[in-house]
């Protein structure tokens, strides 16, 4: 058994779900759980130091392999995906979904593409999965989204074209690399000795794709609008997993292939990331729409993660991965909280909320915990990530963590302000039923994960560290 089993499960799930009519949600969830089970099984194999990667020839000319990574970094990201997928699907059970078979099939397909992106060890395969992930989210956002149809279309199409545009530059980079190396295997690509100029252009090509996907400012303009317009499940997929595709790719592809460029321009890109952190935090302060606010908070967080990734230090990279995973969970939880409110109030305008705490203490507590995790309270998973990232940044220049650390101040500011305006105050005249079991379970699971790894991140750290050292070994050889 190797990692391809997850891909197979998810793809099979997509097809089965597509033809399962009304029961689609449950079928999809079952497949999601199966995939999770498979990834956990693979984890045990991995921990037993068995090879779970996969290498097969896809075609001879051009030489393309069906190669999948079986290392800790990929596995960690796959675990993130396969554990979030069931949560996301389960979270939708509380509300009516029209045309469920297509909806859940698309979600599973999206999972398939994202898992593929995290696993692929062949650049070509990777690019295919990378692009493939765009299609389902495009339709999910378009067909199941909310708000004015015209606006939504505009936002979603912009998102698609924008991200597609970015990735085409990556494709060009890959095409160039292919002419150099003769195939796309990550190992061979990283082993190429490219001149400084070549590295610079390739780095830039990758950067175009990743900066838009992650997104880094000023390439982020698609984000808030799409998050707002997409259905919550779509937003969760986007923010929880898809953003991490870009960040993961920085680690997996950009740094090892163009280490010299990464080293030379390190400061610029770290500044990009940190600027995004501060900018996102400031913009989030005065958002009127709950989902948009969370979108900007995402922008702030991924900026910091990216900055960590570009430090080229073990701490920065490790922190980035930890933060990716923790952010994935917490942002899904937060968007779900927004959805819980939406189910009751049919609005996402913060000004129309307030005074919910009186009526829904359980929900308040869970929401509070998620908010706190998002501002990286120690003992939550996010703190572990943020601390490590900031530590990594501090080894480059002490001003980086000071500026990047502003996020812990501004983050607290906008999140608590939001929490205050949404939840606290005099009782809201509109009734607010406390969370159902389904909703409680969804949030409970996320919270449990956040606390567990917040106190005991060692399993993940041990899993990803060898991969990170491997990646950094390419940058050290210079």
């Amino acid at each position, binding site marked *: 058994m190797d990692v391809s089993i997850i891909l197979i499960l998810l793809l099979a799930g997509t097809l089965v779900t597509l033809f399962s009519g009304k029961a689609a949600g449950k079928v999809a969830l079952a497949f999601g759980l199966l995939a999770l089970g498979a990834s956990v099984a693979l984890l045990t194999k991995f921990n037993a130091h068995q090879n779970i990667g996969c290498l097969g020839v896809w075609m001879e000319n051009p030489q393309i392999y069906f190669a999948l990574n079986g290392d800790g970094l990929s596995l960690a990201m796959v675990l993130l995906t396969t554990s979030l997928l069931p949560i996301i699907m389960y979270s939708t059970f509380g509300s009516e979904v029209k045309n469920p078979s297509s909806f859940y099939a698309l979600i599973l397909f999206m999972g398939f593409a994202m898992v593929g992106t995290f696993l692929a060890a062949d650049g070509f395969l990777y690019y295919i999965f990378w692009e493939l992930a765009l299609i389902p989210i495009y339709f999910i956002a378009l067909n199941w989204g909310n708000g004015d149809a015209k606006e939504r279309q505009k936002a979603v199409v912009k998102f698609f*074209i924008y991200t597609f545009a970015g990735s085409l530059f990556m494709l060009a980079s890959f095409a160039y690399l292919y002419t150099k190396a003769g195939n796309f295997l990550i190992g061979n690509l990283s082993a190429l000795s490219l001149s400084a100029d070549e590295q610079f252009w390739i780095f830039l090509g990758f950067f175009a794709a990743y900066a838009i996907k992650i997104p880094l400012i000023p390439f982020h303009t698609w984000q808030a609008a799409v998050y707002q317009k997409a259905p919550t499940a779509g937003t969760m997929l986007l923010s929880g997993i898809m953003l991490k595709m870009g960040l993961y790719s920085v680690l997996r592809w950009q740094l090892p292939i163009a280490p010299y460029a990464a080293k030379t321009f390190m400061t610029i890109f770290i500044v990009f990331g940190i600027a995004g952190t501060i900018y996102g935090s400031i913009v989030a302060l005065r958002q009127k729409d709950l989902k948009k606010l969370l979108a900007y908070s995402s922008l702030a967080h991924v900026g910091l993660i990216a900055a960590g990734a570009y430090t080229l230090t073990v701490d920065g990279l490790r922190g980035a991965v930890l933060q990716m995973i923790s952010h994935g969970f917490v942002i899904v939880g937060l968007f779900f909280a927004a959805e819980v409110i939406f189910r009751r109030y049919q609005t996402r305008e913060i000004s129309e909320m307030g005074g919910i705490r009186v009526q829904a203490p359980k929900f308040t507590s869970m929401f509070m915990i998620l908010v706190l995790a998002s501002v990286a309270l120690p003992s939550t998973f996010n703190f572990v990530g943020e601390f490590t990232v900031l530590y990594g940044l501090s080894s480059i220049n002490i001003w980086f963590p000071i500026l990047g650390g502003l996020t812990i101040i501004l983050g607290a500011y906008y999140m608590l302000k939001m929490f205050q305006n949404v939840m606290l105050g005099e009782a809201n005249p509109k009734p607010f039923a406390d969370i159902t079991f389904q909703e409680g379970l969804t949030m409970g699971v996320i919270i449990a994960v956040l606390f567990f790894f917040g106190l005991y991140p060692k399993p993940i750290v041990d899993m990803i560290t060898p991969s990170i050292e491997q990646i950094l070994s390419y940058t050290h050889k210079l």
Partner: protein
Amino acid sequence: MNTLLAITGIGVLCLLFEIANLRKAIVPFTVVALLGTLGITLSDYGTVHSHYNNMIVTNNFSVSFSALFIVLTIFLVALSGDFYRKTEAKISDFVSIKIFLLAGAVAMVSFGNLSMFFLGIEVLSISLYILAASQRLNIRSNEAGMKYFLMGSFASGIILFGICLIYGAMGTFDIQEISELTGSAELPEWFFIGIVLLTIGMLFKIAAVPFHFWAPDVYEGSPTLTTAVMSTLTKVVAMAAFYKLLTGMNANISYEYEMVIMVVSIASMTVGNIMALRQTNAKRMLAFSGISHAGFMLMTLLNITSSAGTLLYYASAYALAGIAAFAVILYVCRDKENEDIYNFNGLGKTRPVLAAVLTAALLSMAGIPIFAGFFAKFALFSQTIKAGYLVMVIAAVINSIISVGYYFKLILAMYTKDSTEEATKVPVVFYAVGVLSILINIAIGLYPSFVINLIK
């Protein structure tokens, strides 16, 4: 050779069927017969034959492309049955003209002599003139026919002039001999002028900027099935013939010549894509999209010695996607006055399968993975980078981005707008053609080496 004979035979038989009053059987017969021909063609794969004093030379290049043309024709003929249901009396004419057109097409990739090439291109063109103007009472069809005819024969004149100058320089029409002569000694200036004139003629046929003006008008005005022929089959044929001409005659491509190709290529991509953005008519939009794809395909000429496989792949990907798209367009605009995009509104709900087919086709054209269009683009990019034309690739990348804009207009219409009318029953042939061509598209998208390696 056998292919050509068989095809011509089928064409003649079609006409005979009319006499024998077997109209209903024409389409099925033709499809089956063409499948047989496909078999015959493929049986020649791997061998090199020449016939009639090198008039016809078959090799892997010609076999592969012929096979592609036949496949495309099968799809097009299959769609004819429904398309000509109102003028069934003339169906044998329409089908046989398509078959003859195919004969011309096959001749254009298997010629061994410039006269054969000229005959092939004229057979193809004249058939198309007829098809374009075939709706006699429709002024738009007439106009399309007229425009195509006038400009086409103008281009024919230029091609003929080009052939003439080549002949004047070489004293022979035989490709093989010309190829040998180009390698030796000094060549008269005429030869190069001849090559350039031929090039211009072929650029016209593939509708490259600035010789593209006819394409949108003709595509729009022609009966939709004819548009399908033009946008899929003809474009691919012309490109293959162009490629074969340049390689066959071993014309030393100079730097200046490459510059011309580059400029034309970039201009085609850009003009095609930008003009397509604001079109409201689906056929017209696809015409511009075809212009931009012609620009992409021209990039293969920059690395001419080794890009045959890429060209075949790109052509297959493009044409198959085109067939799938046109199968849907044909259904949607069956009884409509025009092919405006609003006709597609709500197709995602009323006809999910067809909508999916069209979506897939458009995604393939846009170059999104797992569809063949993606790999085609990729192969093109990497080949062009290898040849050292980074600028071209960047231009192509930017154009790919623009192209998504208008492809998605159709997709948006299908999925986000509501249909205004009741869905009519869909003849199964639309499903069959659409789904089949998309499946082939995906299949070669997943296993590109199968197609690319056909020509080495």
